[in-house]
């Protein structure tokens, strides 16, 4: 709904009451006012005002319900009897905006068709517009004759109305409008500018799929006299289109129609001049010679008294400066005067253009002008300027001093994070690419971190200082700034500063004693990370007495990248058992394994079993599984992974080989992922694969197997088997599993395996794919709302006798297990001694169908449990399937 206007009294209006027809306007009240349409004695002025309000509401985004729209429509049709010209025009607008339905069109069509033949030109024009907006193809054939006559009507208003309607109808009935080509062609020659413009637009759209026809159109019109400036602009656009599509470009000859574009630069209308200049600058492979006349007229616009022309010119030149900076150089003097333009958009565009085109001698003058300018613009403009300065400095390296001073000055002023980051990034880039700028750049960065409130940037600059500072002529002058961070900043920055100090100590021998003193002070820091880093670096730097290799290792550690995945490091550290042998970081795998695995321990402790399928919600598909499976070529084509089950143990605890399986469910496939662990130190398993017997699962056919190359002791690995099934079918079945491998003996003393191995196999437990595997546990926050928002037509209700059960709770648990759905609102917990219970479940069935289940349990006799099952889902067939699952379960 429209917001009421803020009423503000001006001094001039003290004597008058401030009037706004939209003050506090709301739909209900305006609809009530529309009743004036029914008065026998029409008040034309009043009706106009009401229609204005209705149009205002529609324009502001208010919508009418079907009933409201129908009522307004019928009321509006009453106004056709009015003789007031202004009111009649508003009636036409209203009907067009309301877009009456098919049933209502008939009512108004006769009035409009009568008006279409009226002697009053205004009625004819507007009736044509409205009629073409609301009619269907059948009615269009009836009035086609009148439309063709209207196109060549001597009254420009009528002709334009028909042409504009043709542009609209071309989208819905192109075959009809194309029959009007002759009339439209005649209208293009009209002496009325309004008609010529619309006719040209319509004719081009009629022919736009015929390149030859468009080319002919352009050829004839560029030779003729087009009077309308708007038509001239259209012609320029169509000409540019023809030039782009012309194959003559590749031959390097003169561009066709270029003379026409150039002649438009001398047109009387400013819009034509601008359109032509822009078209020339956007030609493919435009040459400097071709650009010159366009640049010249744009240069004149730069000094125009009209802001819109200055804006248009500088905006165009800004683009040209990116591709042809030399061509824009002549405009630099005019552009510099725009830096102080009161329109900030013009000023910013001027500066960024000058930064692209300026020569070396103008840099200093430009910097002075920009200093005053920066405080007047917003951060997003400033970032544009900073990035332009960066480019300028790389272009003129000798000018780095004044540019660096500029950047450091604005770095000290107020600004947000993004703005400061842009400046810091620019300074860092300049330091890297311009060796002479290193010393002053680093100094400016040091000054900045003395008073920097952004942790990220402080650590970024400290890291950069650590890499670049030791290479400067006097590294010691940076130590003060770095150590100040240790004293004054938060823990993250302090830790970063400690690392930076260590880098100085490693590379600058003369500073090492002082670095040691500072690092020892850090041993008393309040943060663990800071103390640990100080301890580590003191140890590393203190090893100077050892062989030369150590020094290289130290530097590699300090400056090299850490390429071990942290997940693998964490896993190895957790698996490490304290013993005589120290932990060896080189034994950590560099290979990324993104899926979680069930860990097994070799000690006498009993391992924790895998999490129960019923504990804790599983809101969505495990992203790491999806990533793993899509990275395997054999499975990447299976589509979107619907669900991955919890691991199912196929072996007992404390056995030689530990195997669990994860079932990955796709629409048309199932992938079984066997996670294997070898718990015998003296063995190395190779070519590990699971042989799956699917004879009891007829609906599945095996399509792919991926074996495990090598399975060393206590290092989990995966092997996969993929099955195909029909989409949309609830395929279930039992699979027998045999682990097959080649076993090689490992020498405990050397850790080396024998060259030859023995084939062996190991029986695993059977695996079942059940209906529950096709249900994803997805909870809902409010079951009642979700239930009521689903279509009651999809509900299926039935009752079941569950027979003798140990308890009501046991029955509830069993049904939840069969369905595999997520209990909601804690309803899976059955109070003891209950004789009845209601359980609420939710989930997503394969095919992404949302399912809600309401279970009502009751005791129907001694230990006899009865259940009522109500299912709602997005698809009634799925609701039926849920019942089948329960009936069969």
């Amino acid at each position: 709904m429209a917001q009421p206007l803020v009423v503000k009294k001006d001094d001039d209006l003290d004597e008058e009451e401030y009037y706004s027809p939209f003050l506090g306007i709301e739909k209900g009240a305006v609809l009530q006012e529309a009743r004036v349409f029914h008065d026998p004695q029409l008040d034309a002025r009043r009706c106009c005002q009401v229609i204005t309000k209705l149009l205002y509401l529609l324009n502001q985004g208010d919508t009418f319900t079907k009933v409201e729209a129908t009522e307004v429509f019928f009321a509006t049709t009453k106004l056709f009897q009015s003789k007031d010209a202004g009111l009649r025009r508003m009636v036409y607008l209203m009907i067009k905006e309301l877009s009456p339905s098919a049933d209502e069109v008939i009512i108004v069509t006769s009035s409009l068709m009568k008006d279409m033949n009226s002697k009053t030109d205004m009625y004819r024009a507007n009736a044509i517009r409205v009629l073409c907006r609301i009619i269907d193809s059948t009615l269009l054939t009836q009035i086609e004759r009148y439309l063709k006559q209207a196109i060549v009507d001597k009254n420009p208003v009528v002709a334009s109305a028909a042409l504009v309607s043709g542009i609209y109808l071309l989208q819905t009935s192109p075959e009809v409008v194309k029959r009007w080509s002759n009339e439209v062609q005649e209208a293009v020659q009209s002496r009325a500018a309004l008609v010529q413009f619309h006719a040209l637009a319509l004719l081009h759209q009629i022919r736009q799929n015929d390149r030859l026809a468009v080319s002919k159109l352009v050829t004839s019109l560029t030779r003729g006299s087009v009077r309308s400036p708007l038509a001239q602009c259209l012609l320029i656009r169509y000409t540019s289109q023809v030039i782009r599509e012309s194959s003559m470009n590749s031959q390097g000859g003169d561009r066709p129609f270029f003379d026409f574009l150039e002649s438009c630069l001398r047109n009387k209308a400013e819009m034509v001049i601008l359109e032509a200049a822009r078209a020339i600058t956007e030609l493919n492979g435009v040459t400097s010679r071709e650009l010159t006349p366009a640049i010249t007229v744009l240069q004149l616009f730069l000094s125009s008294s009209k802001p819109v022309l200055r804006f248009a010119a500088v905006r165009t030149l800004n683009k040209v400066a990116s591709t042809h900076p030399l061509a824009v150089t002549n405009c630099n003097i005019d552009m510099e005067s725009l830096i102080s333009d009161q329109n900030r958009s013009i000023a910013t565009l001027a500066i960024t253009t000058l930064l692209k085109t300026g020569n070396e001698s103008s840099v200093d003058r430009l910097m002075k002008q920009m200093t005053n300018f920066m405080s007047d613009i917003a951060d997003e403009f400033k970032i544009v300027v900073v990035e332009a300065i960066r480019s300028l400095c790389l272009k003129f390296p000798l000018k780095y001093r004044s540019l660096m001073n500029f950047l450091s000055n604005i770095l000290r002023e107020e600004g947000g994070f993004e703005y400061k980051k842009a400046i810091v990034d620019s300074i860092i880039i300049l330091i890297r690419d311009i060796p002479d700028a290193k010393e002053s750049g680093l100094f400016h960065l040091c000054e900045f971190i003395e008073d920097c409130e952004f942790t990220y940037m402080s650590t970024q600059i400290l890291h950069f200082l650590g890499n670049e500072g030791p290479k400067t002529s006097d590294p010691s002058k940076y130590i003060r700034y770095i150590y100040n961070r240790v004293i004054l900043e938060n823990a993250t920055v302090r830790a970063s500063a400690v690392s930076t100090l260590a880098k100085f100590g490693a590379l600058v021998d003369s500073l090492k004693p002082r670095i040691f003193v500072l690092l020892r002070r850090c041993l008393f820091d309040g943060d663990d990370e800071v103390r640990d880093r100080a301890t580590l670096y003191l140890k590393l730097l203190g090893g100077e007495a050892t062989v030369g290799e150590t020094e290289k290792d130290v530097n590699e550690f300090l400056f090299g990248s850490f390429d071990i995945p942290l997940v693998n490091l964490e896993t190895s550290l957790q698996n490490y058992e304290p013993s005589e042998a120290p932990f060896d970081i080189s034994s950590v795998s560099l290979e990324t394994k993104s899926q979680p695995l069930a860990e097994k321990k070799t000690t006498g402790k009993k391992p924790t079993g895998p999490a129960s399928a019923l504990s804790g919600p599983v809101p969505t598909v495990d992203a790491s599984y999806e990533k793993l499976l899509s990275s395997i070529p054999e499975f990447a084509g299976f589509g979107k992974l619907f669900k991955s089950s919890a691991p199912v143990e196929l072996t007992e605890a404390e056995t030689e080989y530990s195997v669990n399986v994860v079932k990955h469910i796709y629409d048309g496939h199932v992938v079984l992922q066997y996670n294997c662990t070898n718990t015998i130190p003296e063995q190395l398993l190779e070519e590990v694969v699971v042989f799956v017997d699917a004879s009891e699962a007829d609906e599945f056919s095996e399509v792919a197997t991926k074996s495990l190359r090598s399975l060393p002791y206590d290092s989990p690995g995966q092997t996969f088997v993929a099955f195909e099934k029909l989409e949309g079918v609830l395929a279930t079945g039992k699979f027998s599993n045999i682990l097959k491998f080649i076993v090689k003996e490992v020498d405990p003393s050397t850790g080396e395996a024998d060259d030859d191995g023995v084939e062996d196999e190991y029986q695993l437990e059977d695996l079942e794919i059940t209906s529950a595997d096709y249900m994803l546990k997805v909870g809902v926050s409010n079951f009642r709302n979700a239930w009521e928002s689903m279509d009651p037509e999809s509900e299926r209700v039935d009752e079941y006798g569950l027979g003798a059960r140990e308890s009501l709770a046991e029955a509830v648990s069993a049904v939840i297990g069969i369905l595999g759905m997520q209990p909601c609102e804690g309803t899976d917990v059955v109070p003891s001694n209950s004789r009845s219970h209601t359980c609420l479940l939710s989930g997503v069935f394969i095919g992404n169908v949302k399912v809600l289940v309401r279970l009502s349990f009751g005791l129907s006799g001694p230990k006899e449990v009865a259940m009522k099952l109500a299912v709602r889902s997005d698809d009634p067939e799925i609701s039926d399937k849920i019942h089948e699952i329960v009936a069969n379960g």
Partner: protein
Amino acid sequence: WPYAYFVIYKFVQELHFCITAGDGDNEVIILQGSSDSVVQFTVLLGDVEKTAALKNLDMILLSYMVGKYFLWSMLRLHHRFF
């Protein structure tokens, strides 16, 4: 060059026009097409002020909505007033 919009403003005494247009559009066409007609209309009334425009907003809406076709055929125009 990424696609973008620009906004053109025009202030005539109490009337403020704000017009948004696509990056490739012709600024002169947009400005003249959108605001000059309304200004000329109010000049005829002898009063280029907000109250005059509001009292005759029906006529202004008329010129805009009729002009939709005029502008729509070659421009993508979004306009609001006040």
